[in-house]
């Protein structure tokens, strides 16, 4: 009898997101419902992290338009709402990519996030798996309208394994929730307010606990980086494999990032949305021993290659419907292929050689003056 009662779950809510209807349990947020549909319909989320209680609502990238509140009250909501923190109602109609208002607001948020971001992707360890990179490719403009000095902070070492580079931070607060919720002795939080607010530890104290490394995994940008991996390699040159070991502190299920047989980096396993995977409905956070100390393939039982999700740069060949940027370089060169990089830089002027008039590729002889007397 009790079992029968249990099966009668409360009626599901029907919610329509961008003309696709999905049934979800009451109490689901719009973002979670959209993730059930997946694909382009899902709003991007920089601060929301389903495994961290209280996260979300801050970055405003997941804003959506609610065209009808519910069947009972079909009035539209006047403002755009943060989909990560707004729960669905039965009969709700949500517009994400079909709403111009949303696209405009999102482009605005991306612009705001980028005006003080250093854009040092070429030297940033997060490049290739950075959510802000993905977001700006999708919604950002090609140039910036910001003409002022960007905000900078000193780099800070928090603990022996983690470096905090506040200049890159977008203040999503995820790491403070990690420090708060999965570790003891909270010493980590926000100092100051407004545009000079910064993530820090109280009086630059080191964060010293077994699960602090998870802050690196939740950071959507390169503000928190793994010191054992800093500048070792680009993400897209390493190959990820799933591996596990018996660990008495954590689940021991990880992704190894290898180059050859060297294990360059260990992270927790991420799901499609860049969040840590769950095992037995518990988030698979990993401990610092697994993350920082077990850097040999022999420490691990290798399961096989990791399934790569759309967020990773190594999946670039697997994107469906990818639009390649228009090749304009040929047009710039007057209809022919560029011969050398020097073509573009105009170094030929220095050597008094008009590269475009050469019949074939330029060689070293092209620039050598002819010997006298010949």
């Amino acid at each position, binding site marked *: 009898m009790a079992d029968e009662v249990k099966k009668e779950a409360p009626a599901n809510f029907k919610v329509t997101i961008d003309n696709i209807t999905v049934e979800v349990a009451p109490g689901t947020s719009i973002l979670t419902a959209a993730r059930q549909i997946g694909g382009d319909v899902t709003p991007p989320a920089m601060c929301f992290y389903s495994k961290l209680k209280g996260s*979300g*609502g*801050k*970055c*405003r*990238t997941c*804003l959506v338009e609610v065209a009808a509140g519910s069947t009972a009250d079909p009035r539209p909501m006047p*403002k*755009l709402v*943060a989909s990560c*923190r707004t729960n669905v109602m039965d009969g709700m109609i949500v517009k994400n990519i079909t709403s111009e208002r949303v696209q*405009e*607001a999102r482009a*605005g*948020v991306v*612009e*705001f*996030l980028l*005006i*003080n971001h250093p854009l040092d992707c070429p030297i940033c360890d997060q490049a290739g798996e950075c959510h802000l990179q993905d977001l700006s490719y999708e919604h950002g403009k090609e140039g910036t*309208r*910001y003409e*002022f000095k960007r905000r900078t902070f000193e780099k800070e070492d928090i603990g022996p394994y983690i470096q905090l580079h506040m200049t890159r931070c*977008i*203040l999503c*607060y995820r790491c403070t929730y990690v420090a708060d919720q999965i570790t003891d002795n909270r010493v980590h*939080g*926000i100092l*100051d*307010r*407004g*545009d*000079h*607010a910064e993530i820090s530890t109280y009086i630059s104290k080191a964060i010293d606990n077994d699960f602090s490394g998870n802050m690196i995994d939740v950071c959507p940008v390169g503000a928190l980086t793994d010191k054992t991996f800093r500048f070792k390699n680009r993400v897209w040159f390493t190959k990820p494999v799933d591996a596990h070991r018996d660990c008495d502190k954590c689940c021991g299920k990880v992704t190894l990032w290898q180059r050859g047989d060297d294990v360059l980096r260990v992270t927790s396993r991420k799901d499609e949305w860049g969040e840590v995977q769950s095992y037995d409905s518990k988030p698979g956070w990993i401990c610092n021993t697994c993350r920082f100390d077990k850097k040999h393939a022999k420490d691990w039982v290798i399961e096989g290659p990791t399934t790569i999700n759309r967020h990773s740069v190594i999946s670039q060949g697997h994107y469906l419907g990818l639009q390649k940027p228009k090749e304009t370089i040929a047009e710039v060169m007057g209809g022919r292929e560029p011969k050398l990089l020097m073509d573009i830089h105009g170094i030929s002027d220095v050597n008094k050689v008009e590269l475009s008039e050469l019949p074939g590729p330029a060689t070293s002889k092209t620039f050598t003056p002819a010997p006298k007397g010949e």
Partner: protein
Amino acid sequence: MGRKLLLDKAHIENIRLYDVYRREGGYRSVEKALKTMSPDAVTEEVKKSGLRGRGGAGFPTGMKWSFLAKPEGVPRYLVVNADESEPGTFKDRYLMEFIPHLLIEGMIASSYALGANRSYIYIRGEYAWIVDILEQAIQEAKNNGWLGKNILGTGYDLEIYVQRGAGAYICGEETALLESLEGKRGNPRIKPPFPAVKGLWDCPTVVNNVETIAAVVPIINEGGDEYAKIGIGKSTGTKLISACGNIKKQGVYEIDMTISVEEFIYSDEYCGGIANGRKLKACIPGGSSVPILPANLLLTTAKGEKRMMTYESLAEGGFATGSMMGSGGFIVLDDSQCVVKHTYTLARFYRHESCGQCSPCREGTGWMEKILLNIENGKGKMSDIDLLWDIQRKIEGNTICPLGDAAAWPVAAAIRHFRDEFEWHITNADDAQRRNYGLMHYADPLPPPSKGELAGVK
């Protein structure tokens, strides 16, 4: 001569002391409410009065009270928002400094209506001396049996605590205030849930402005219907206006909401006209975050009607040609003032006070400030004006709390109504460093904007 309900006894010497206050008829409303009325009857009376929140949004107080969730066995709280930090607003300070017992009296009656046994006054940190005044008043009330256990033998218990803020404007936002009161960092919460359901320590909470709570006293004394007779339409009762800027008599005035803006500025009873024989250029009628209005639109609405000092009339025309009653911080600018510099000052304030939680406000307010500083210093470009417009549009409505809107509106309104002054600042950069734009052509009096213009905005 308008009616005065809150400040009619403010001039009496030592009214801040209990004995004088009681002799002048103080605490009558508590006696009446606790002894002869049920809590619901008090709420009903407030509903009838049509009292609207005096903190800025103008939400009907009685309705707010009736939204309060009342689950069994869960305490409820009344929190008085005395974190008055809006530039140009200083009405609550006057009220608390001179007649603190009026607030305490209102709090007892309101707490009784809401069923709260603990009430808090969250006061701005800079009002340090007022904390002492309030605490003395609370002590006096306690000594005379108006607070504590079993008040007036009715079995109703109430304690009032005063909590000082630490100097953040954002803590005037109700959910940030509650966070701060709980001892956390004063970041606004994401709504829903609203405080009426989950407020202080996750319990149902009502947050009201000082003046709103003080207005409960005359409502109970005279009855809600009597109170509702004062004023025009849905703007009932009296409102404290803190007038400042280039007027002859700055100060806190209590108006019954029946007078016109023109009368308020020029009559000797109130502001006494523009100081030093200058001319009215612009005015911010409700505290720094509401849209600024040029003189012509301030005195008459776009329809050509006289603008009154009421919630509806000040908002007439929406943001295209109107403004808001806001918190009643009435800032008057004469023709010697520079709107660009003024807007920059406000933008600097909002950048400084943004909590930094959500990105549009954190990044956008600083950006706007820098652009405005450039224009003010004669380094602006024409495209900056459109850029400012675009930035404010992307902040407004996209933030967690209303601070983003409050930062966007003044900039939007300044560009909307004073675009020529911004342009003059850019094209005559050198001139702009030496002299002000003055009145030029747009100020008082000017025909209302054409219909085409109105259709374009909002």
